[in-house]
C-alpha cells in the first residue's frame, strides 16, 4: 500500500513538473492580459512614448459603449455575420463531406482541394478576393458579364448589404474546407454495420442518412458549430484588407471596431471595453450552443 502511495505521489509530482512550464507561459501570455483587459476597460488610458497614463472611470466606458450608435451598428453587423456564417459553413461543409464520402469522391485530389484554402493566410485570401471582386477589373465581373448574367460591372463592395454579404462569402469560402474535413472524418467513423442494419430494415439512402448518419455525427456537427461561432467572432483580416469597415461602417464588425478605437484613435480603455464585450458574447454563445447541442451532461471537449 505504501509503495503504491509513493508511486502515485511520484506520478503526481512529475505531472506537476510537466504541466508547470506550460501553465506559467500561459499565465503570462494569456492570464495576465485577460485580467488586465478587464481592468483597462474600467479606466481611461492613454499611452504616449511607452508611458501609460491611467485613471479609473468605473463603468463609464461601458455606458458610452451602449449609447454609441457605431457600436450598436457593429453589434448588429457581427450578429448577422456570425449567424449567417455558421449556418452557411455548416450546411456547405456537410454537403461537401457527404459528396466526398461517396465512392466517386474518394480521390485524394479532393482532399487536397480542401486543405489548400485552409493553409492560405487570411490576409492573402482577402487580397485575392479584393482582386476578384474589383469593380473595374475583377474576374467575377468579367465572367458574369461574359456569361450574360449582368450587363454592367457591379461594385460588389460598394453598397452596405452587398459588401457585408461578400465579406461573408470570402470568409465562408475559406472556412468551409476545414470544417468539411472535420465532418468527413466524422462521417468515416460511422460504422458500416449501422448502415447494414438500416438496410436490413429496408431503409433507402435518404432514410439511412436521416436516421443513421445524422444522429451519429451529431457531436461532430455540434463541435463544428461551436468552433465556427468562435472563429466567426474573431474575423479581422478580411475587414482590414477588403473594406476597412466601409462603406459607411457597414462592414464594421466588433473586432474591427475595437481595433480602430484602440489603434487609430488611441483610446485604449474604450477599446478594451469593446473587446471584453466580444469575449463575454463568445462565452455566452458557446455555452448556449453546448447546452443546445449536448442536452446530456457532457462538456465540450
Amino acid at each position, binding site marked *: 500500500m505504501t509503495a503504491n502511495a509513493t508511486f502515485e505521489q511520484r506520478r503526481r509530482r512529475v505531472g506537476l513538473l510537466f504541466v508547470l512550464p506550460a501553465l506559467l507561459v500561459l499565465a503570462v501570455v494569456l492570464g495576465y492580459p485577460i485580467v488586465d483587459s478587464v481592468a483597462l476597460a474600467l479606466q*481611461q488610458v*492613454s*499611452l*504616449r*512614448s*511607452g*508611458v501609460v*497614463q491611467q*485613471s479609473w472611470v468605473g463603468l463609464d466606458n461601458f455606458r458610452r459603449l451602449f449609447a454609441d*450608435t*457605431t457600436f450598436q451598428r457593429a453589434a448588429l453587423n457581427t450578429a448577422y455575420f456570425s449567424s449567417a456564417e455558421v449556418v452557411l459553413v455548416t450546411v456547405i461543409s456537410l454537403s461537401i463531406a457527404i459528396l466526398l464520402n461517396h465512392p466517386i469522391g474518394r480521390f485524394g485530389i479532393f482532399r487536397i482541394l480542401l486543405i489548400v484554402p485552409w493553409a492560405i493566410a487570411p490576409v492573402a485570401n482577402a487580397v485575392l478576393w479584393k482582386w476578384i471582386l474589383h*469593380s*473595374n477589373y475583377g474576374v467575377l465581373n468579367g465572367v458574369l458579364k461574359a456569361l450574360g448574367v449582368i450587363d*454592367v460591372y457591379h*461594385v460588389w*463592395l*460598394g*453598397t*452596405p448589404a452587398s*459588401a457585408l454579404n461578400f465579406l461573408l462569402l470570402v470568409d465562408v469560402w475559406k472556412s468551409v474546407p476545414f470544417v468539411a474535413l472535420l465532418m468527413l472524418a466524422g462521417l468515416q467513423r460511422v460504422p458500416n454495420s449501422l448502415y447494414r442494419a438500416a438496410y436490413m430494415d429496408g431503409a433507402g439512402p435518404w432514410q439511412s442518412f436521416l436516421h443513421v448518419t445524422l444522429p451519429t455525427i451529431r457531436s461532430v456537427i455540434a463541435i463544428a458549430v461551436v468552433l465556427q461561432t468562435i472563429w466567426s467572432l474573431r474575423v479581422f483580416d478580411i475587414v482590414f484588407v477588403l473594406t*476597412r469597415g*466601409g*462603406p*459607411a*461602417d457597414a462592414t464594421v464588425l466588433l473586432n474591427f471596431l475595437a481595433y*480602430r478605437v484602440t*489603434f*487609430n*484613435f*488611441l*483610446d485604449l480603455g474604450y477599446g478594451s471595453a469593446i473587446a471584453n464585450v466580444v469575449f463575454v458574447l463568445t462565452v455566452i454563445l458557446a455555452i448556449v450552443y453546448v447546452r443546445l447541442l449536448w442536452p446530456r451532461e457532457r462538456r465540450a471537449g
Partner: protein
Amino acid sequence: MPISVSRRTLLHGTAAAGAFASLSRFLRNEARAADAAKLSVFAPLPPDPAPPGAAKFSEEAFARWKAANGAEVEYELLAWPQLHDRMATAFASGSAPWDIVYMSGWVPELQSNIIPYADALPKALVDDLPKSSFSTVTVDGKRYGAIFTLSLLTLFYNKALLAKAGFKSPPKDWNELKRFAKELTHDGQYGFVLNYGDPAGIGGTASYWMTYLQQAGGKMYGEDGLPVFKGDAGVDALQLMVDLMPFTDPGSISYAGINDASNVLLAGRAAMMMNWPFMWTAATDPKQSKIVGDVASAVLPAGPAGSASIDGTDAWTVTKSSKNPDKASALIEFYLDAEVQKRQVLDTGWLPIRLSVLADPEVQAKAPNAAVVLEQAKHPYDSFVTPDYTEVTVAVGTEVQKALQGQKTAAQAIADAQDQVTSIVKRRKKAPNQ
C-alpha cells in the same frame, strides 16, 4: 635636482603616453562616429510625395549631401493610407525609431512627439515659402513642420469629352458642375468620379465635403473649438455631393485611394474629378493615361461663397526621440533646396513650395497646372486640422457616406455628424492627455 629616470617613472610615463594616445584615438573615433550620423526617415511610397532617394529625383545631389554631411539616410516607406496607423501606434508604444517623419494633417494630433525645429530654419528659406503654408503645422505658436509641396485640390477634366458635349470651358460654379456632370453621363461614361471609400484623413470623404463646406461659406469649428457646421453651408455642401451621385462613377463609393479614381478618368471613362497637382504627371504619361493631351486643370467651381479648396499639408517633421535633430533639420533643408524642389516637380510632378521655384519659367512650362494651383491658393483652403482630425474625419466621413448611399438625408447626416464631433471634442477637453 636631476630627474632620475627610475623604472617606475618609465612605467608611469609609458602608461601616461599610452593613455593619452588611446584617449585621443577614442576622441577621434567619437568624432567620426558623430560624423557618420544615421538618419531614419518615415515617408510614403511613391507616387505619393517621397523624398530624393525614395522617389527618383536629385539622386546625385542627395549622394553629395550625404557625403558632405557624413550622414547615412535610411528610408522606411509605407503605402500612404497606412502611414497614420503605423505612426500613431509607434509613437504610443515609444518604439518610433525615426528622425524625420512625413505628416499630412497629423501635426496637432502627434505634436507631443515632435520638435518645433521649423522655428530655426534659415530666414532666406522661410521668406521663400508662402506664409500660410505654416498654418497647419503650427501649434501654440511654434512651428513643428515644413510643408514641402504646394498641394491644393483643383479640378481636373477631360477637355475632349467636354467639347464633345458642347462645353468649351470648365464649370464655373455648382450649378454648372451639376449640369455638366449630367450631360456627360451616358453610355458607360460618367461626368464625375472621386474616391469616397475612405472616410478619414486628408483626401478622404470628409475632407472633400470640407472643400464644399468652405465653398458654401461654412467652417468646421467655432471659437471654442466646438463644431458649427450644422447650418445651411454644411447641408448644402453635402447636398451637392448627393446631387452629383447619379452622375458619379458608381465605383467611387468603394475607391479607397485617389488613384483608383484617377485611373477611371485617365482611362477616359469619366470626365471630371478633384485631385492634387501631382496628377498632372500621370495624366501626361502615355503609359498611365489614355487621354494624354486632353487633360486640363482649373480652379474648383465656386459655391455660394466662391471657390475654395483644402491643403494637402504634406510636411516634414523631426521627432523628439531623434538623436541627431540638427542633422535631421539640415536634411529637411536639403529637401527644400531650390534645385531639389525644381527637380521634384520636373521629375515627379509634386509642385514645389518655394515661391521662387514656382515662378521659374521651366517649371511653369512643365507643370502648367501650377498656375492653376496658385490661382486656387487665392481662395480659402483650410483643412481644419485639429488634434482630433482622424477621429473627426472618420465620424463625419461615415455620415457623408451614408448620405451618399441614400441611407439618410443630407440634413440628418450633417446633424448626426455634428453631434458626434461635439462629443469627440468634449471628450478631449475633459482629458487633454488623450
